[in-house]
Every structure is written in C-alpha cells, then in structure tokens.
C-alpha cells in the first residue's frame, strides 16, 4: 500500500482510538517508501534500445562494413561486461539476493544498472544480427534470425534471472511467430517448440504474475496464427483453445491456472463475437466445410473436460458452454449469441452473490462484449451511425445503473441498511 495513503488512514484510526500514535509510527516504519528511480532506468533502456535499432537500419552511408560491425560488437561486449560487474557487485553486498530478482526492488541501484546493461547488451546482440543481415543483403524465408535471438535470451536468463530480460525475450519469440505468419504465411514450429519447452519451463517454475499473463496471451496468439495459417477451417480454434483451457484447469499452480483460464475464456469469447458476424455472410458459409474429425476430437476432449470439472468445481461448468460449436446448424449465430449471453449472465449473478471480484469482472466484461455484439448485429444497418454511439452509450449507462443498484442491494440489504 502507498505510504501516504496509509498515514492518512492511520490518522483516522488514531482519532477513532483504534491504535495509538506510537503504534501508527511503528506500522508506518514497516513500509519503506518505494524508490521509483528504477522507472527512469527502465525508460532509459527502452529509449536507448529503440534508438540503437533505428540507427542500425538507417544507412550509416559511408562507414565500411567491418568497422560498423566492430563498433556494434565492442559496444555489446562492454554492455555485457558492465552489466555483469554491476549486477555482481550488488549481490556481493546483499547475501539474500540469491532469490529471483524483481524489478521493483528499492535500494539496489547497482543491481538496476546491472539489469539494464545486460538487457541493453541483449538488444545490441539482436541489432547486430539484423545489421549484418542488412549489410550483406540476406533474404530469409523463415524467421531464423529471430530464433537465434530468442534462444540467446533464454540462455542469458538461465544464468541471470532478470525478469525484464525474460519478458523481452518472450515478446521477441511471440513477435517472431507473428512475423512468420505475416511475411511467409507459415506457422513456425521451431518457434512454438522453443516457446513451449524453453519459455514455459521458466514460466512454470518461477510463477511470476507478469510472466504468466504474457505467456498465456502469447499462447493464445500462436493458437490463432496456427488456425489461420495452417488449418483450413477456422473452427479448429475452438478445439485448440479448449486444450489451453484444460491445461489451465489441470496445472497445479494457482496464478498460472488463472492466467490460462482467463485468457482462453476471453479469446474464445472474442472469437465467438467474430464468428457470429461471419456466419451471416454468404461467402463465408460457402467456404465452410464440416470436418467430422473436428467433432470427434472436440467431443472427446470436451467430455473429458466436463467430467474433470464436474469432479473439481461444478460452479464453473458454464465455461464449457463457450466451447460448444454451433456453426453447423441453421441460424447458428443466434445460438452463439445466446450461449454468450447465458455465460455472462451466469457470471454476473454468481459474481454478485459470492462477492467475488474476479467473477464479477468476468461477468461484466463478457456482458458488455455480448451486448455490443447483439447491438452491432441488429442495429448497425438500420440505425444512423451517430445514433449507434449515442444509444450504445445510453445502453452502458443503463447497465451500469442496474448493476450498481444490485450491488447496493446485496451490500446493504433490501431495506437500505448496512448489513
């Protein structure tokens, strides 16, 4: 908690006679004011990284090849060695630093310098790699330079567990898959294997919240790319996302579990929104081929998931509703919207009844997406565009009003008195 806020609150407690002044001081002393200087360093790293990358790709015109290269390699080495030196100096002073390093650690200036230099060195490595590809006019037909960069990031992280480095390398890996799809319309299996076996290892064992969500979003993006690029029929996305959801259910770590489940639910929900639009298009329906193999594998996994959830926690069985495919029946979009609607209403009610914030958020977000979908479906063409936004805003007001009223009722009881 923020120290200033705590002091304010604490003074109220002193006035109310809950605690004494001394106790307040004692409590406040336990909270060290956060050193925000790491933010400056973080931004410095980003700015320098961007600067270097832009500089590399501008023509340094007359500078000959090998001297350009030596400048880059020497700067990279200096950065790495400086980073190594600073980083070790900090862990020399502080014995407890063996535990994984968080970015938000105060009073560890040299450690912060160490981190930023090593990360910059890593950026320089990638920049040098792309510099030589550019200098020697190399055309590549898969993402091998990115793969090298990603592997180096993983190796570096295995020596120095720097979160920033990991996130950066993870983003490079995800980006390389996106690039592979855009530039070569290929799903790169090697990138995926590195992602699953290399990065997932650390995500699983370190279990940091920031890793979890980046990884889950990255996985979802790769599922989308695999579907679009490699698979003929779009609906395999449902199956792959169900696998991801099941992985989340099975995984023993709670934070990771949540990341997997939330991200897979959100992506299937957005997917359903698009699906409901597309299933009304003639050209889309013409290309649609119903593959029996899809129903067989989906059926097996779905029933497995149902039995598993029935045994584990029945209250979340509703999630599986989203993974039922409807596209093969007439007026499928109505059923899709209906399933989205049931899902969101269920979570809204359960969330408010159990006063469980996460569940309420699922309910609210899904309800908003669902309402928007319906709105665009049925009103976009008949209504004037400005009216669309006006009515959309109005609708949100009404929803928030009803939700707020309901929240008060649950909080204060029917009579308006606080329970």
């Amino acid at each position, binding site marked *: 908690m923020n120290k200033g806020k705590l002091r304010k609150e604490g003074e109220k407690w002193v006035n109310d006679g809950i605690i004494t002044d001394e106790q307040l001081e004692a409590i406040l002393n336990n909270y060290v004011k956060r050193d925000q200087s790491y933010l400056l360093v973080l931004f410095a790293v980003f700015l320098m990284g961007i600067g270097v990358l832009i500089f590399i790709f501008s023509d340094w015109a007359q500078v000959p090849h*090998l001297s350009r*290269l030596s400048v880059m*390699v020497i700067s*990279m*080495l200096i950065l*790495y*060695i400086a980073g*190594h030196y600073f980083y*070790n100096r900090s862990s020399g002073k502080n014995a407890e630093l063996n535990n994984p390093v968080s970015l938000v650690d105060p009073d560890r200036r040299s450690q912060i310098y160490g981190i930023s230099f090593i990360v910059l060195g890593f950026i320089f*490595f990638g920049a*040098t*790699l792309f510099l*030589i590809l550019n*200098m*020697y*006019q*190399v*055309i*590549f*037909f*898969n993402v091998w330079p990115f793969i*090298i960069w990603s592997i*180096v990031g993983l*190796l*570096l992280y*295995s*020596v*120095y567990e720097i979160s920033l480095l990991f996130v950066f390398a993870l983003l490079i890996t995800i980006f390389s898959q996106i690039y592979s799809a*855009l*530039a*070569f*319309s*290929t799903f790169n299996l090697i990138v995926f294997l590195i992602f699953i076996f290399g990065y997932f290892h650390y995500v699983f064992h370190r279990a940091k919240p920031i890793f979890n969500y980046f990884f889950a979003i990255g996985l979802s993006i790769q599922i989308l790319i695999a579907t679009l*690029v490699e698979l003929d029929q779009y609906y395999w996305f449902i199956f792959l996302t169900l696998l991801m959801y099941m992985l989340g259910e099975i995984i023993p770590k709670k934070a990771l579990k949540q990341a997997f489940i939330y991200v897979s639910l959100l992506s299937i929900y957005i997917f359903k929104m698009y699906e409901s639009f597309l299933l009304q298009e003639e050209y889309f329906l013409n290309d649609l081929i119903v593959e029996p193999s899809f129903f067989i594998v989906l059926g097996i996994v779905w029933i497995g998931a149902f039995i598993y959830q029935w045994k584990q926690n029945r209250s979340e069985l509703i999630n599986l509703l989203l993974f039922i495919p409807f596209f093969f029946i007439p007026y499928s979009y109505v059923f899709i919207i209906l399933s989205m609607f049931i899902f969101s209403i269920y979570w809204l009610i359960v969330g408010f009844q159990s006063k469980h914030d996460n569940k309420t958020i699922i309910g609210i977000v899904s309800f908003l997406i669902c309402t928007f979908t319906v709105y665009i479906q049925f009103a976009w063409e008949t209504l004037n565009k400005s009216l669309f936004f006006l009515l959309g805003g109005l609708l949100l007001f009404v929803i928030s009003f009803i939700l707020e009223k309901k929240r008060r009722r649950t909080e204060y009881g029917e009579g308006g008195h606080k329970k």
Partner: protein
Amino acid sequence: MKRILFYLIIMLQVIVIGFLTYQFEKIDRTGHQIKIQTLSPDFPVYGDFIDGDMYVEYDINKIQEDRWEDSLPLDYHTPVFVLLQEDKTGVFRVRHASTDKIEAKNDNEFVLKGTYHYYDQERDFHYVNYGLEHIKQADQFGTFKPRDELIVTILIGKWGQYKVVGIDKWNE
C-alpha cells in the same frame, strides 16, 4: 560457475556473429552466379533511381500458369521454389515453380526461393517476389533509363544472401 557460464554465452554470441559474417564475406568465392533480365516497367517506380538505388522487375517475377505444379492461386507470401534454366544467351529463365522443394539437376539450372504474391487475371501470370528487386547503389554500374531492358548479374549465396555484381544493357 555462473561467471564462466555468462562469459561462455557472451562468447557464443560473438561466435554466431563472427560465423555469419565469415559466411557472408566469402560469397565472392562460393556464390552461384546467375544473369537475369529486367522488364521495361509498366509502373513508373520500376527502373528508376532513388538515391542511387533502383527498383526493377524481372521476367522471372511473372510466371505463367502452366509452369506451376500447384493448385493456384496460393496464399499471399507463401514461400515457393522456382527452377531457373539458362538459355542460349546465358540468361536464366523460369522452367517451373512449386511450393515443394526442387533440386537443380545440372549447372544450367538454378533454384531460387521467393514468395508468392498475386495472380494477375488480365495478363494471366502469377507474380513471385524474390527480394532481388531492390538493387542498392545501382548507380555504380552506370546510368540507365527506365525503358532499358537490363541484364543483372547476381551472386547468390547459400544463406539466402545476394550480391549484384553487374548491370548491362540488353543488346549491347
């Protein structure tokens, strides 16, 4: 232990960069030389100099339907292999194209990799991009007008690297 590992990883990075540079530097000895012909442009930007660079279009960019082994059209940006064959004048022309890997059988043949772009229905060809269409510092080989049909001599290295070593006017 940690220190040694760290230095090993740094060494590894320098070795990777050194190895790639070494491979790219020796293209003059190991590269495969081919000559390809440009077309007179049907779009103003081609064949023109921009800061000494030149954007051209080759006849190997446009591949007729009967030269393909696949069901067409392909997805935008799909990697394809194009088998080139040397004609009597020493210029390489398209023999056939495929998404499956093709091997060159003799010295007169060469396999070039490219990405599929689009199908031109009016003129009936499939456009393939090779990445060779942008010639850097083309002005070192002389001055050319957009309407000139040129023979471009290119060294192709193993790692997808290329180097333009000469540009001559056709018929000269």
